[in-house]
């Protein structure tokens, strides 16, 4: 038996290990370690006004949502109509974080599909995404008045998640 016949098996075993590790950390089940902790601070250029900045400090005293999205992200299109509805209802401000995206493509995307965001910032190199523990795009964070992350939605926001988790949480946080 030559070693080269073993190669496919070797590759498969490595793959299997990763798949097994992937199973133990189901991205939708495991809560983010950041929940209950202070939101990592950022100060980023605004999408529509690159010379102006927006940072976590500006949102102090408000309950707000941070939605991580990108023009190249297909699941973002799924949640987009819902975000637009949410923005129209004017319950909670949504800040958009355009993640690893070209600003002009991000702007065009919003111009075409509607802009649900109170403010949009650009995370060109994805560094803020790393600070916030972004697994995949889209992700949505709920941040309370004291700047603490209270909830994280991985993947598109769904009607269920919005009605059963996010909105009740937002209302509770706004009351306190």
């Amino acid at each position, binding site marked *: 038996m030559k070693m080269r016949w073993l190669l*496919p*098996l070797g590759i498969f075993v490595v793959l299997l290990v990763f798949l097994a590790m992937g199973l133990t950390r189901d991205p939708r089940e495991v809560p983010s370690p950041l929940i209950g902790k202070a939101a990592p601070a950022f100060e980023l250029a605004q999408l529509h006004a690159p010379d102006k900045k927006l940072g976590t400090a500006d949102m102090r005293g408000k309950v707000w949502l941070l939605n991580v999205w990108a023009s190249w992200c297909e699941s973002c299109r799924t949640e987009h109509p819902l975000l637009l509805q949410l923005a129209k209802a004017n319950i909670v401000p949504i800040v958009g974080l355009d993640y690893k995206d070209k600003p002009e493509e991000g702007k065009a995307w919003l111009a075409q599909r509607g802009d649900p965001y109170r403010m949009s910032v650009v995370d060109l190199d994805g560094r803020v995404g790393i600070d916030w523990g*972004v697994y995949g795009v889209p992700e949505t964070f709920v941040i309370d008045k004291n700047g603490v992350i209270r909830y994280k939605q991985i993947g598109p926001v769904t009607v269920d998640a919005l009605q059963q988790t996010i909105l009740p949480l937002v209302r509770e946080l706004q009351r306190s």
Partner: protein
Amino acid sequence: MIPEVGQFALILALFVTLVQGTVPLVGAARNNVRLMSVAVPAARLQFVLVGLAFACLAWSFATSDFSVANVALHSNSRLPLHYRVAATWGSHEGSLLLWVLMLAGWGFAVTLFSRNLPAALRARVLAVMGLVAIGFLLFLLATSNPFERAIPAPAEGADLNPLLQDPGMVVHPPMLYMGYVGFSVAFAFAIAALLGGRLDATWARWSRPWTTVAWCFLTCGIMLGSVWAYYELGWGGWWFWDPVENASFMPWLTGTALIHSLAVTEKRGTFRSWTVLLAIVAFSLSLLGTFLVRSGVLTSVHAFATDPTRGIFILVFLAIVIGGSLALYAVRANAVGGGAGFGAVSRESLLLANNVLLIVAMASVLLGTIYPLIVAATGGTISVGAPYFNLVFPILMAPLVFLMGVGPLASWRDAPVPALWTRLRWALAVAIVTAALLPFVMGTWMPLVAVGLFLALWVVAATFVTARQRFAGMPQRGWRARMTANSPAWYGMLVAHLGVAIFIVGVTLVRGYEVEQDVRLEPGQSVAVGGYTFTFRGIAERAGPNYDALAGTFDVHHGDRIDRTLHPEKRTYRASGQVMTEAAISPGLFGDHYVSLGEPVSEAGAAGAWSVRIYVKPFVDWIWGGFFVMALGGLLAVTDRRYRVALRPRESAAALPAAAD
């Protein structure tokens, strides 16, 4: 009562597969004909039992028996009958049952068309398929029982996901699964060859039609999925590099490589261990695709409800089936051996390049798909999106398509480059000049469009040269005699290659020249997009069987006359309250008009102004046309007589030295 019958049939089927998967193997090892002969009736019985179970589930859906949990969750009494039946495979449990049914169906087909196979090979092939079925039946019964009752029964069902209420849903999954599961036959042949230690040109000839048919189904399945995404998701895109799309694309790439590698093994007796490996990998990727979709390790628009125990079960199953096969390969590959040598430029070497490129492409898709898992495991965070695939994929495919023009002209063993150059230089010149000029006709010159068109024209021109050369060198008189003297397999190859060219034209022109506009339109207003004028006539209410729709009316003018009228809809499904956008598309040979309703944007609500998305997509239907022609080429190849000619044992024994001359 009916659901219990189905449940019972599944349990019986499990016992049958236990026999089918073991007894014939023992028989083949001991050369015991009586034990081997168990395989055929067992495989047929398994098909009948699984078919019965499937029919029971379909019946429960058709009659809206909401005491079955699966029906209550995925159907509704107001759903039209054809969607109620299609809802049978609209859930995780139902789609797995469909998987098992397909597997049993392929096994049944093998029993019908394998009379001429050596008894040991036939027994082993059916036994391996039985072993795979054991795993899936266990999975179904242990973790995903489709017949589970929910008593007391709810009065009404939760309805099928509106995304799935579409004619595409009725045909896409069965086609795709036929392809996925069809590779189990090639896989079983490969394992049987490894077990028997015999792999020769006749083995390749037996495996080829099965592989090609499975590949045709997979091609059609992927095509239908892509069409469905195009008009149902309302984004106007046709491919999203979603993990589940990738899961179907990886076996397709490997299957394509396998078809070509099998050709070499049949004609020249070489690439043997490589062919076996490809057959194992193609089916393993089908299983991996199942794992990725069912376990929920990757998030995707296709994700069904997920459950960690299912993930663990499939992972163990993967480890046993794929790990076991590859271990067997490691031990036995040496025995099936390599084959005759060939020159640095020859049809063999070109097909080898084809295989390497396809497998590298498959590996890049695999890497892109599971990269989030790898990075998560090492503690980082990253996501791979369409930009990665859109960058990597064309770079790998361009040389492959170029070689596609050369391969069919090159002779086996050794193909002198000067001779190839003489034959192909005119094809090359024609392709370059036409590709450089055509973009001007379309309006704007773009380098990438020219490159894409060059590749497509090159394939067409080189295919033409191949055909002309073949016909010129034939002894028969008259075109009719010459036409019929060539094998269907050869025509199939030409047709499939032309399909690739058609596909490339579609992709290139859509990417280059599509026009997309989002506009706000009051009733009566018009907008000009891509040479056409779209006039918004207004919105009307319309009630569907299980939804209420707001339907828009748009007149499309070209010049002075009304070309056509489109009716995009916004549907609200009553049971779930989900809102779906139903784009209106008018397809055409030279492009589609695509109108999709956004939201009402004025105070007047639905009666006032709407945001509307309008696309003009030139040549987009060529993308699917190309897929269709590829599948047609495959089907043509399968009709080749040489796959049906009865093979006497004497003849098959003589085939090995003949192939290795």
